[in-house]
């Protein structure tokens, strides 16, 4: 019977091509707006490391000025970064089962490969736990150990893209890369890896690609590698040397701790507070105790990765879809009632109410599907349009990730369009199903 319903639905849509196209277009417009908004919302709100998001915690200490909070609008929020002194002390304490400290830097990469010009490489200066804690996949080799951090040893881990660029995608473990004036031996090459949002560093572009090269943490101090990201200071201090900078109250380091359960979290929280108290005794950290641990989802929320605007936009998009559907309901009612004499005839010839409703629901399903496919095409065009709005490479790269067509969203959108079709078509179908067959037979 479904085949017959499908045939009737196609015949009915063909009978009124203009009206059918108009209804499909109305659904498509609503779906396209929703799909674009959902794509962006999905990109910003997805959990980039769901299997470890409860375990990984961003570490914060309120080291800010006693006279004014770090965030004037939300004074309860401590700074998102740590001073070098606090970060290295906490890291060295070993209070967490596993922890890391890191920052973003950059330097000139001098490739040996013929034809590859020197380029500015982004660097992540990090302690060795980075790869294990964030579950970073390697295609060749691996990371380094604590001794390499302390040494520091001239080891580097390359991103897949950097390895492609420098070594044509070969296994480059053991080979040498020259960054600035220092040569490093390649210890490992990553698989293509780009968590989105880039949860472990929300200070430097939420949707930015991860860095080109990873270096042991000790190189930062030894080579005085600059911070390529936020450095925030509240105190006027004499900083005439890199050592002055390291000893300052400026915050610029990201710290993460792996805390497998509530008890570990409580213990580490107590450790943070005790450390803060000890610092108070030396005259630092005069603000009330406000040291916080954030798991990944809390961290994304704290950094407003999903802004209120995103949520409002999502609401408006669905409202727009609703308006489109109301119009479709009106058009469907007009169409179905216009064809009521035919429906009355079919009822007289033996179609039950259920047959009639099913036949019309099949038609709106088809309409919803057509609207969905058209809507997805419009959405793909819309997302491409958003990308084209941004000229500079940096912003465009961020938006490319943000506006990438996601198969999950495509499937969800198709389901949404079919659902929208059913929602729009249910009342007209039910209404036409209630029509007494005799009413229209004379007028047929």
């Amino acid at each position, binding site marked *: *019977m479904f085949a*017959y319903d499908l045939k009737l639905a196609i*015949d009915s849509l063909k*009978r009124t091509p203009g009206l059918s196209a108009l209804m499909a277009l109305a659904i498509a417009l609503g779906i396209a707006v929703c799909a674009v908004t959902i794509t962006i919302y999905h990109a910003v709100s997805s959990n980039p490391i769901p299997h470890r998001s409860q375990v990984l915690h961003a570490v914060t200490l309120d080291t800010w000025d006693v006279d004014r909070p770090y965030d004037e609008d939300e004074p309860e929020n401590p700074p998102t970064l740590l001073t070098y002194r606090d970060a290295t002390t906490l890291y060295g304490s070993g209070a967490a089962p596993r922890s890391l400290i890191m920052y973003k830097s950059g330097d000139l990469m001098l490739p040996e490969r013929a034809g590859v010009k020197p380029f500015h490489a982004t660097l992540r200066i990090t302690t060795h736990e980075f790869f294990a804690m964030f579950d970073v996949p390697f295609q060749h080799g691996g990371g380094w150990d604590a001794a390499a951090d302390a040494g520091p040893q001239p080891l580097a881990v390359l991103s897949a893209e950097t390895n492609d660029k420098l070594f044509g995608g070969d296994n480059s473990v053991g080979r040498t890369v020259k960054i600035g004036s220092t040569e490093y031996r390649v210890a490992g090459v990553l698989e293509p890896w780009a968590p989105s949002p880039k949860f472990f560093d929300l200070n430097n572009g939420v949707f930015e690609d991860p860095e080109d090269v990873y270096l042991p943490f000790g190189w930062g101090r030894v080579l005085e590698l600059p911070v390529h990201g936020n450095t925030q200071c509240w105190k006027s201090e004499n900083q005439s040397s890199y050592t002055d900078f390291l000893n300052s109250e400026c915050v610029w380091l990201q710290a993460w701790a792996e805390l497998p359960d509530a008890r570990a979290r409580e213990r580490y929280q107590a450790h943070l507070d005790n450390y803060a108290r000890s610092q108070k005794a030396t005259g630092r950290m005069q603000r009330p105790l406000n040291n916080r641990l954030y798991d990944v989802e809390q961290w994304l929320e704290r950094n407003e990765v999903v802004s209120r605007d995103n949520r409002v936009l999502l609401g408006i998009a669905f409202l727009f879809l609703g308006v489109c559907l109301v119009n479709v309901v009106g058009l469907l009612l007009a169409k179905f009632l216009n064809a009521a004499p*035919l429906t009355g*005839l*079919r*009822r*007289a*010839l*033996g*179609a*039950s*109410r*259920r*047959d009639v409703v099913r036949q019309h629901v099949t038609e709106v399903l088809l309409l919803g599907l057509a609207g969905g496919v058209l809507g997805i095409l419009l959405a793909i065009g819309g997302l491409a349009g958003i990308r084209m709005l941004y000229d500079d490479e940096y912003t465009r790269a961020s938006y490319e990730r943000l506006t990438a067509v996601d198969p999950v969203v495509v499937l969800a959108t198709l389901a949404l369009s079919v659902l929208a079709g059913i929602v729009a078509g249910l009342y007209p179908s039910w209404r036409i199903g209630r029509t*007494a*067959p*005799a009413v229209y*037979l*004379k007028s*047929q």
Partner: protein
Amino acid sequence: MLEMQNVTKAYRTDLLETHALREFSLKVEKGEFVAVTGPSGSGKTTFLNVAGLLETFDSGSYRLDGEDVSRLGDDARSQVRNRRIGFIFQSFNLIPDLDVFDNVDVPLRYRRLPAAERRERIDAALELVGLASRRKHLPSQLSGGQQQRVAIARALAGDPALLLADEPTGNLDSLMARQVLDLLEQINEMGTTIVMVTHDPELARRAHRNVQVIDGQVTDYKPYEPSSATVTPLHPAVAGGASRA
């Protein structure tokens, strides 16, 4: 075949109540050809709609082919309409964008018959009405008389026990009207009970029995005399081969 006892039917609005049928009683025997006549607004079409289960009624009883169909639900009514009743309308009521074959196919689709059986029944019905060669024609490519014959084929393909005709020749010229009436007589002779609503006295005269309806009541009723009917079986594909499912 058809037995109505004291059937009443009123149409109500906020301001008005119109009694279309009042204590309407009628018995039609199997194999009869009954003409129902009466002035406009007398209730003929309402009777036909109630008889065809296209409308419900307020009180009374209605037995069709021995079964009480007074209070059936929508599914059951649709099934009875589909399997036991055939309709012929004044304006033919063919679906304009379906060809002859597909028009005749419509009631069979709702009976969920297999394709081969549907094809056999449609071929036999079109053969009976003399339109086997026009199966791929659209209604607009046929004359009025041919369209009415397609409608008759559609009614017959389901092998109904009762054929209800509402002014079947009302939209036809006299020659075509005669052809359609000849066909109805032939179908009746094959054993199908026919109840026909008509204004046309000449048409009514060719029925076995005339029933006059005035103000929603039967005013002139004569019982059926079976000797006047000659019963010849329907085409095997329509009647014999396929059981009345």
